[in-house]
């Protein structure tokens, strides 16, 4: 058993004070968690009870301060298998009761250590439910966390929070995407990697903040995935001779994603099978001529009911989105690329959760079928993508 890293109850209580200040002035006082310092971002809450490692390393959380509604965080420590990218992306972390001792056979170190090592400023011991209710009622907003023994006065802190950039209008995907193309080899039936070039399908995946599990889910289905930088051109994409093109999840306002939108339009022109997730869904929406808008407080959790309107079935899904596509639910829309319809909808609030073209091989979902963290109910979408590619060959 690992010994206590966090120290005794009394040491913990004597951790540096920390303050969380929202842009509307509401303030919560707690204790420093992770790195001591100052951070700013958009305050959002995530309702998942498992999967903090995946959440922290999801590039879509870039520039966001994540409030965990689950009170106990860090119980299973940190392992080297579960991160969704190479680093923690959240701008700040808010928890109620951090674990003092991690317990899991895969754990390598404590979450606290990891946060310190990666310089992530957090706060613990605050009424996270009150904060969540506040964000629910007032909407996601800017926030600052200040920790340490010499904190600025309240007015200064609030002024600093109000100077931080807003999420609306932010173009962030380039900041999180890979700079170099890399290849995720397909996985053969024997569980071994298939040699490059020998896979059944090749997919060009445009990285707008891609999570590690996404290429893995494709690789499991015999797809060799070429992950390209967000700046990749149409030529770059077709240089890998893809059977299909994928647009990933990512942070920021889709209205500020002109380049990916234009690249996607070129792909639609060529009728190459196309699949988008999350940000990729918003890009498809914009490519088709729909608008996008910011939700009041977004969907962030792993329990959201989404109905597949083609089958009527409900899947429990992982979400992380603050923006959504504005498309009509009740009719088929005419677009430059033929007829399009809303394929998936969130049953909690009727938000568009998926789009599909009826005349071309393209579809996308707003949520996360790769599901890390989250339930695996929507994994069939990767099979649909394979079917599209298979159909295009036939």
């Amino acid at each position, binding site marked *: 058993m690992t010994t*206590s890293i966090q120290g005794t109850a009394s040491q913990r*209580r004597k951790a540096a004070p920390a303050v969380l200040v929202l842009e509307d002035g509401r303030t919560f006082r707690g204790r420093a968690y992770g790195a001591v310092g100052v951070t700013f971002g958009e305050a959002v809450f995530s309702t998942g009870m498992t999967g903090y490692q995946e959440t922290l390393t999801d590039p879509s959380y870039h520039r966001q301060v994540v409030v965990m509604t689950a009170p106990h965080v860090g*119980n299973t420590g940190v392992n080297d298998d579960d991160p969704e990218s190479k680093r923690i992306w959240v701008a700040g972390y808010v928890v109620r*009761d951090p674990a003092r*001792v991690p*317990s899991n056979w*895969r754990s390598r170190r404590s979450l606290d250590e990891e946060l310190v090592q990666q310089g992530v400023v957090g706060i613990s011991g605050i009424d996270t439910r009150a904060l969540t209710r506040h964000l629910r009622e007032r909407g996601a907003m800017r926030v600052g966390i200040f920790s340490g023994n010499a904190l600025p006065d309240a007015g200064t802190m609030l002024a600093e929070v109000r100077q931080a950039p807003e999420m609306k209008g932010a173009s962030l995907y380039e900041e999180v995407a890979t700079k170099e193309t890399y290849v995720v080899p397909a996985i053969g039936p024997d569980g071994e990697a298939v040699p490059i070039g020998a896979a059944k399908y090749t997919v060009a995946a445009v990285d707008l903040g891609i999570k590690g599990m996404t290429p893995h889910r494709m690789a499991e289905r015999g797809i060799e995935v070429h992950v390209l930088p967000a700046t990749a051109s149409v030529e770059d994409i077709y240089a890998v001779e893809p059977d299909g093109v994928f647009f990933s999840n990512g942070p920021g306002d889709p209205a500020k994603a002109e380049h990916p939108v234009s690249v996607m339009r070129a792909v639609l022109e060529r009728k190459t099978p196309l699949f988008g997730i999350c940000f990729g869904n918003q890009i498809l929406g914009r490519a088709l001529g729909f608008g996008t808008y910011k939700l009041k407080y977004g969907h962030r*959790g792993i329990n959201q009911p989404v109905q597949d309107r083609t089958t009527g079935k409900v899947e429990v899904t992982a979400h992380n989105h603050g923006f959504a596509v504005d498309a009509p639910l009740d009719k088929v829309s005419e677009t430059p690329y033929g007829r399009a319809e809303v394929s998936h909808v969130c*049953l909690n609030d009727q938000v568009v959760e998926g789009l599909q073209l009826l005349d071309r091989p393209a579809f996308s979902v707003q949520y996360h079928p790769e*599901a890390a963290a989250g339930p695996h109910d929507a994994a069939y979408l990767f099979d649909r993508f394979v079917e599209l590619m298979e159909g295009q060959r036939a």
Partner: protein
Amino acid sequence: MPKRTDIQSVLVIGSGPIVIGQAAEFDYSGTQACRVLKAEGLRVILVNSNPATIMTDPEIADATYVEPITPEFVEKIIAKERPDTLLPTLGGQTALNTAISMHEQGVLEKYGVELIGANVEAINKGEDRDLFKGVVEAVRAKIGHGESARSVICHSMDDVIQGVETLGGYPVVVRPSFTMGGAGSGFAHDEEELRRIAGQGLTLSPTTEVLLEESILGWKEYELELMRDKHDNVVVVCSIENFDPMGVHTGDSITVAPSMTLTDREYQRLRDIGIAIIREVGVDTGGCNIQFAVNPDDGRIIVIEMNPRVSRSSALASKATGFPIAKIAAKLAVGYTLDEIPNDITEKTPASFEPTLDYVVVKAPRFAFEKFPSADSTLTTTMKSVGEAMAIGRNFTEALQKALRSLEKKGSQFTFVGEPGDKAELLAEAVRPTDGRINSVMQAIRAGATPEEVFDATKIDPWFVDQLFLIKEIADELAAADKLDPELLAEAKRHGFSDVQIGEIRGLREDVVREVRHALGVRPVYKTVDTCAAEFAAKTPYFYSSYDEETEVAPREKPAVIILGSGPNRIGQGIEFDYSCVHASFALSDAGYETVMVNCNPETVSTDYDTSDRLYFEPLTLEDVLEIVHAETLAGPIAGVIVQLGGQTPLGLSQALKDNGVPVVGTPPEAIHAAEDRGAFGQVLAEAGLPAPKHGTATTFAGAKAIADEIGYPVLVRPSYVLGGRGMEIVYDETRLASYIEESTEISPSRPVLVDRFLDDAIEIDVDALYDGHELYLGGVMEHIEEAGIHSGDSACALPPITLGGFDIKRLRASTEAIAKGVGVRGLINIQFAMAGDILYVLEANPRASRTVPFTSKATAVPLAKAAARISLGATVAELRAEGLLPAVGDGGELPLDAPISVKEAVMPWSRFRDIHGRGVDTILGPEMRSTGEVMGIDSVFGTAYAKSQAGAYGPLPTKGRAFISVANRDKRSMIFPARELVAHGFELLATSGTAEVLKRNGINATVVRKQSEGEGPNGEKTIVQLIHEGEVDLIVNTPYGTGGRLDGYDIRTAAVARSVPCLTTVQALAAAVQGIDALNHGDVGVRSLQEHAEHLTAARD
């Protein structure tokens, strides 16, 4: 796809009496389901033999049959009612087994009844060990995860012995098929244990089948609650992690929701397996529960079992998440899909989602080993707890400490004062799972044990172990602090420390701590259980306390009545009290009050968020209740707090609440004292001129002897301060009196022993009555079948009384009124009388709702608890009569001559307990209550009603066969007539030599059989115990006497329990049974719904 239109009626089967492993949770589930089905416009027909349930209230179903849940009786109901469908998944294993058996007998087909909510194939796949193993293999083939423990199915002892080799040796787990609550299962470490456990398991299993399994002791244990609709939508409602690792039945474990020590990858794997299993098993609509074991070293997952029905865990999950599984299961069964059903709590989002929690729930079991001193208290895979408490906190430590104090048991809370004891001894003690092991662990930590040592001894997950260390560190800080500063106090409260605990640590009184705390502004806020971690606004005020910043209690305008519930079920305080609290809530809501329920028992209807306007899921301690009263005072006007209906738990708070300025309504605390204090009550009786048995108190043997000599043997002795008959004994002679005083560790100068004259051969009578200060309403008079001296809770009784005449009732009414008036009751009172010779003695009075209120209410078709609640708030009997809540004229003492006879029978948990040698515990009844539940038999004559009560409680009385009779000398006279009757009904009598001789001299032939002590005869003549074990005996009559002859009787009675042979331990029960057998042998026994009975009674009253 909305509701099916081809269904007009549905038969719902309840779970019958409360027994260990099948308790009040099925009342909660069944009530929910019946209400939903009725609201859907279906005719709901219900069968349940348990009168103490809300579900058997006449307004819950359209036709309510309080009849035995046996295929025979259920068929009679089907023949009469001709329901379209049968919903078998809400009444536990009892309902499921009954439904399956009726399917197999072709009854369902014969009457064209469709099984809904589960199909037979799915039930079999889920319940049959071998088939389920196949399911798990199929799942593994499909998704690559999940496996069963290595195992072998056995149908004989030879199979069992060979099986151990196949598995690679001991220890092995034995699990009998188709038993509830894991009855008959256990760990065998060697062949002797194996033969014993497997032998009993083979007997208990209706298919004579046991499963032998590799041991996964010490692994992490998890449960998932799933639901599936007919469109194959599946949701996981809740994950539950057991604090106690594998080896302890989940019903006996401290459990935690949500799971605390799984990563998302591991959790999703369990979820994937769970979903694949529910599909593979083919549960089309409804809920199921799946249990998993996870190897803490490498994460290997073993699927332990599934229940294709609503269960104890699903009730817990419903309370833990706010997702009402039973209610939704009922809707799914009649055709809805999950996405068509709204989430009650948010109203705006659908039920096709998975609840997410921003709090932690801890459930802790309540045991009753003190009632069974000879029973082995080691916890195993056979469930032994009799109840549970649940607590909600914003973190684990808070929830755990709240759960422990909710148990309301001496020593259940952690203590941090005094010497902890020897570390090595404490750790050794913690190896064996028992009631209170967590306290031994805490003491070991105090004694210096390291986290590693605790883990090695217990295999409790290191994260949980650290949480215990955290609690201990805060206790240390509290002890070391110069003063209680607000920061430290708030921190202690955030980790669940009670004012009592803090006071103990600081050497302060509880009220002083509270005063300091209030002065420093450290008070709880109340958060909402909302299924969604605040993502959406909650419409349902289901609260728990936490020491956070923001409270969610909304202001209100209507005056509120706060009803204090009864806490965890325990022997002596069970579902009956919840029944009264729920009735109060309904009645007061109808009368225009806002109702606020406080309780911590997850099994109950009272803690359904639908029952009251507001629900506080909180411990019932003074501190917790005072804070709730404070919070509600801030929210709006309070009309009063009701303490009278939840049993001894809230009653005990009465005085302290009043002292703290809380408006306690109903019977005032002073009146409670007048009834409970021996001296004060004696005064009341003296003033009313009512006799009580002679009594005295003593602190030494000499003193006790002097009293006994004066009042005469036998005497009833008991320690002075205990409740529920603890340590009570009938002493027949001086020798036993001496040894009783010597053995009792609880007698000292400050704790005297009470010595009462024991009224031998007296008829015991129970009376429930309402009193408003002016007028008495006699609710009902119950005549006990067993003589005085057997705890009223364990005794069968009949209402109306079967041998009392109008004059006796008149006397009872006058005495009851005198006591109610003398004590100062405003509401319900229960009085126990004993009629000896012609004298009516008063044994005791309880100024509160009694255990028999639901029975009396059902037998007389009058809602006594509702009336009591109204009287508490100022209504009079006259007003309630005018309103129609009480009958316009007459009362429960003057029922029409053709009124039906209701018989209540107690259900005992003998089969659950074994001593440390693995032998059964003795089954004799005594002054200490040990029954867990009750059934009601109702019919036009006593014999039939009694026969029904037996069928409901223990299985049908035999109508022919072999009866074995062995009675104590004092009973030999009374035995002759019933014995003769048995012979007349064609029974062959077996008897031991002494009894046979008496029978012979009275002209009754009986075959002499050998006593167990005589051993097998020279020509292989078997002893009675052997004959019982071989199934050669159909009825046993065995009455014990003092200590002599006890050993022989012990073997007979425990054999009867093991073989489930009806065993009568009093001659009164024998006489009643003979009347029952007579009724069964004379023509058809019919069924009649409570609604029909009520109609009949009302007509007769008018």
